[in-house]
C-alpha cells in the first residue's frame, strides 16, 4: 500500500504550482484582447446590418451577445487547454489523481455567475425586444409593442400575402392594390401585415431585420422603420413545399419622393385588377367567396383597431 497512497491534499497543494492563478491570468489576457476585437472589429460586420431600426437593434444585440460569449468560450478553451497540457498522467502509467469530490465555493460561484449572466441576458433581451417595437418579429394580430407614434407621418401599411410559392404585397394606404414589387420609403415606419393563403410561410426581409411567419387565417403584424436606401432580400423562412427554396424576391428602400412616384405608377398599372381582388382584409379564405383568392375575413375579435376597413378607402399615398 505504501507507495501508492495518494499524496495528502495539503502536501499536494504546496508542491503544485498555482494553476488557478495561471489559468486566470491567461484567460484575462486573452479576453482583454479578444473581447474588444470582437465587439469593435467583428461587431459592425455582424448581420443584419443597419438598414432599419430593427436591423440595427438586432446587430447591436448580437454584438453584445458575442462580446459576452467571447470570454466564456475563452475561459473554457483556456481551462481545457491548460488541463490537457499540465494535468496529464505519464504515458502508460495508471495513477490516481487527488480525490476531490467537490468544492463548495467553486460550485456556488459557478452557479451564481451563470445565473447572473443568464438573468442579465434576459433583461437585456427583453429591453431590446420592447425597445424597437418587437424587434422586427411577427407579433401576431394584436401587437403589444408598437412603434412610438412620435413622428407626424402615418405608418405605411403593407400587407404581405404569401402563397405557394410567391409573395405579393398590398399597399393598404393606397387603395389596397396588389403588386409583386416591394418598395418602401426611407425613414417612415412600416407595418407589415403578414398572412398566407395556403400553408405556413415565413416573410423574412433579411437586411431589414424583419421576420414574421405567414399563417393562413392569421394577420401577423411586424414593425420596422427603414433608415438606409438600398436593396434588401425577401426570402421564405418556413418550409412551404417543394419550391420553398425558390420563393424569394428583392425589395427596395427608396427616398420618399421616389416612393410616391412609384406608388402612383403602380397604382395606375394595377387599377384594372382591383375589382377582381377581394376587399383588403386581415386574412383571406380561399375556399369561400367570389374574389380572386376567396373572400376577406374579419377577425373574430381584435383588441386594436384594424387598419383594413378605413385605409382601403383612404386616398392614395396618404
Amino acid at each position, binding site marked *: *500500500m505504501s507507495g*501508492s497512497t495518494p499524496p495528502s491534499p495539503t502536501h*499536494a497543494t504546496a508542491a503544485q504550482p498555482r494553476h488557478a492563478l495561471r489559468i486566470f491570468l491567461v484567460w484575462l489576457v486573452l479576453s482583454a484582447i479578444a473581447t474588444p476585437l470582437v465587439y469593435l472589429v467583428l461587431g459592425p460586420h455582424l448581420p443584419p446590418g443597419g438598414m432599419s431600426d*430593427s436591423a440595427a437593434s438586432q446587430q447591436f*444585440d*448580437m454584438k453584445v*451577445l458575442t462580446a459576452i*460569449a467571447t470570454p466564456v*468560450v475563452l475561459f*473554457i478553451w483556456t*481551462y*481545457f487547454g491548460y488541463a*490537457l497540457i499540465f*494535468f*496529464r*498522467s505519464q504515458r502508460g502509467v495508471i*495513477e*490516481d*489523481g487527488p*480525490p*476531490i*469530490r*467537490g*468544492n463548495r465555493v467553486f*460550485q456556488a460561484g459557478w452557479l451564481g455567475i*451563470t445565473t447572473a449572466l*443568464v438573468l442579465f*441576458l*434576459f433583461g437585456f*433581451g*427583453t429591453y*431590446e*425586444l420592447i425597445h424597437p417595437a418587437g*424587434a422586427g*418579429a411577427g407579433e*401576431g*394580430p394584436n401587437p*403589444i*409593442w408598437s412603434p412610438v407614434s412620435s413622428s407626424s407621418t402615418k405608418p405605411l401599411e403593407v400587407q404581405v400575402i404569401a402563397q405557394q410559392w410567391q409573395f405579393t404585397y398590398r399597399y393598404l394606404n393606397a387603395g389596397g392594390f396588389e403588386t409583386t414589387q416591394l418598395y418602401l420609403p426611407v425613414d417612415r415606419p412600416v407595418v407589415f401585415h*403578414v398572412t398566407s393563403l395556403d*400553408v405556413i410561410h*415565413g416573410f423574412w426581409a433579411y*437586411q431589414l*431585420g424583419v*421576420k414574421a411567419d405567414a399563417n*393562413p*387565417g392569421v394577420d*401577423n*403584424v411586424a414593425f420596422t422603420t427603414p433608415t438606409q436606401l438600398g436593396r434588401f*432580400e425577401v426570402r421564405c*423562412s*418556413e*418550409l*412551404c*413545399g*417543394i*419550391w*420553398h*427554396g425558390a420563393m424569394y424576391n428583392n425589395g427596395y428602400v427608396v427616398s420618399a419622393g421616389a416612393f410616391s412616384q412609384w406608388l402612383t405608377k403602380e397604382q395606375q398599372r394595377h387599377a384594372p385588377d382591383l375589382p377582381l381582388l377581394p376587399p383588403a382584409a386581415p386574412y383571406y379564405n380561399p375556399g*369561400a367567396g367570389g374574389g380572386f383568392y376567396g373572400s376577406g375575413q374579419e377577425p373574430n375579435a381584435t383588441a386594436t383597431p384594424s387598419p383594413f376597413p378605413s385605409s382601403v378607402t383612404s386616398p392614395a399615398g396618404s
Partner: protein
Amino acid sequence: MALDITSSPAGDGGTLATGGVPAARRTRNDWLRPNVLWGLVGAVIGYAIGHWAGNAIAHNWQQVQGSDQNNVSLVLGYLVGSVGFLAGLGIVNYPLAKLVGRQPPAPEEAQPGLGKFFRYTLDHKVVGAQYLVAMILYFMVGGLFALLFRTELLSPTSHVITPDAYIELVGMHGTMMMMMMTSAIIGPFGNYLVPLMIGSKRVAFPRLEALSLWLTPAAFVVLLSGLLIGGFPTGWTGYAPLAVQATQGMDSYLVSFGLMALSLLFGAVNMAATIISHRAPGMTFGRLPIFVWAMLSTASIMVLAVPVLFAGLYLMLMDRTWQTAFFTWQHGGSPYLWENLFWFFGHPEVYLLALPSFGILAELLPVFARKPAFGYRTVVAGLIGVGVLSFFVWQHHLFMSGMNPDMRPVVMLTTELISVPTGIVYLGAIGTLWRAKIRITVPMLFCLGLLFNFLLGGITGVFISDVPADTTLHGSFFVLAHFHYTIMGGYMFGFFAGVYYWFPRFTGLQLSEKIGTWHFWTMIVFFNSTFLPLFAVGLLGQPRRVFEYQHRLQGLNDWATISAYLLGVSLLIFLWNIVWTTAIKNRPSSMNPWHSLGLEWTIPYPTPLENFDRVPVVLSSPYDYGVPDRPPVAVVPEPVGVGCGPALSDPVREEDQHG
C-alpha cells in the same frame, strides 16, 4: 467466436425471469423458429390485409375518389404490416397467450452463434447489441441522405436533383436523425449497461424492451417506403397545413414516427422501472452512476413528452384519413395547434438527445482523469433540472409565428435559464479534470470533442433564445448549425465515445486505438469544417431547407459540402475500425481495458446470461479514484449463511499492491 456476446451455459435459461417463465425449449429447426425473415413475411401479409381492408372501408369516400389516393388503406397497411412483422418475430404470442390465461411461452433463449441477433430475445445484452447495430445503420443511412442533398447545394442555381427529391431527402434526413436516433444511446448503452451498472441480473420488463427494439426496424422501413410514394415535403417538423395538403408520403412519416414514439415509450418505461426497482443492495441513489441518472432523467422526460407527440401524430393522421379538421383553420382548427403539440414534444426531444451524451461524458471523464466525479450531486441535479426545464421552453420555436407575443420574455427567460443546468455539465468536467491524471484515449478524445462542440452549440443557443437576435437567426442555417453542433457534435460524439469505451464490454474486443484516433481527428476536423461555415451562411441570410440560395454564399456552401463528404469518409474509417477489429484482427481485449471502477467492468467476458452469479452488494461509489482505503465497488455475497464472498475485481487496487 469473439463476437459471441452472451455466454450461454446450457440450462441457465430457465431462471432468466421470475415471472414464472418456463425453461427454454429448443426443438424446431432454427429457420422455422420466429426470426426476422418470418417477420418480413408477416409484414408483407399484414400489409396486404391492411391495404385490402382500407380499400374496403374507404374506396367510395369522397376524398379518396377525388384525389385517387387512399390514405386509409395505406395507413392500415402500414399498421397491420407492422403487427405482422412483430407477429413473425413471435412478439405477439405473449399478449395472445395472456388472453386465454396461459403461461406466456418464453422465447427460446441462449443459443450460441449469431442467430439470436436476428430474433426476438429477452436478454437485455442481446437487445443492446441489436440496438447498437440498428442505430449505426440508421445513422449511416440518414447521413447518406445528407450527403445527397449537400451535393445539390454545391451550386446556388443549377440542379443535380429535382426540388421535390431535394425536399424529400431533407425530410428523410431530419426525421431519421431526430426520430430514429433518439434511441442511439438509451437503446444500445442504456439497455445493455444499466442492469450491469446497477447490479441487476435482468431488466424489469424484457418484453417491453425487446418490443421497443423491434418497433424501430418497422418504423425505419415505413419511413423509407415513403420515398417510393413521393416522400413528404415538410421536413421532420411536419408543419400542419403543408402536412395536411401533402401526398401519401406524409402518411409514412406519421406512421413511422408514431411507431417510434411507441418504441420510445416502451423503452423508457422499462428503463425507468428497472432503475427504480432493480438496483442491487447498497446501490443507493447517491451511488448511482451518473450515466444511469442520465438514463433515468431521459426516460422520465420520454414518458411525459412522447405521448404528446403521439397524440399530435394521431390528430394529423385523423385529419388526413377521417377528415377531421384539427389543423384546418377554415373549419375551426388551427395550424398553431400542431406547432404547440409538436414542439411540446420537440423541445424535450432535443434534451432526450443531449442528456444521454452528458451521462456518457460524466461517466467517462472520471475514468480517464482518474479522479472522483466532481460535484456528483450538483451534476445529477443539473441533469434533472434540464429535464424539468425542458418542458417550459417549447414556445421559443414559435417566436416568429405570431402567437402570444406577451409570452416571449417568459420563454426567453426559461430558455436561457436552461443553460444553467446545462452549464453544470461543464462545471463537472472542469472540476473532474482539475489536477487530474488525464489519459488520452479514443473515448476520452471523443469526450473532449463533445465538450468542444457542445460549447459552441450551447453558446449559439443563447443567441437563438434571444428574441431580437432570433429575428434574424430563426429558420436560418444558423439554427441548423446550432443544433448540429449540439446533436451531431454533442450527442453523436458522446455516442462514439460510448462505442469506443464499451465495445470491449459488448464484444470482448477493443477497437483499434490507432484507427480510432484517425477516426476522431478526421471527424472533429471535418465536422467543424462542415458546420462552422454554416453559422456564417445562416448569418448571411440563407434560410433552411432551400435548394437555391444567394450567389454570394456559394463559396461557404461548397466548403461545407466538400467537408461533409470528408465527414462521410471519417465515418467510413469508423466502420473500417469495426471490421478490422472484429473480422480481421479479432484479438480479445483484457477484461477491464480502461481500468475503470465501474461495476459493469467487474464481470468477465462473455457476459454471463444473468450478468452476476449472485446479486452483488454495492459498497462504494464507482468514482472513488484516488480515495485512500477505498472499499471494493461491490462484493458478491455467498449464499445465505456462509458470509461475505470475495470482492469483485478491482484492478487499480491490485496494481497498488503490485506497485
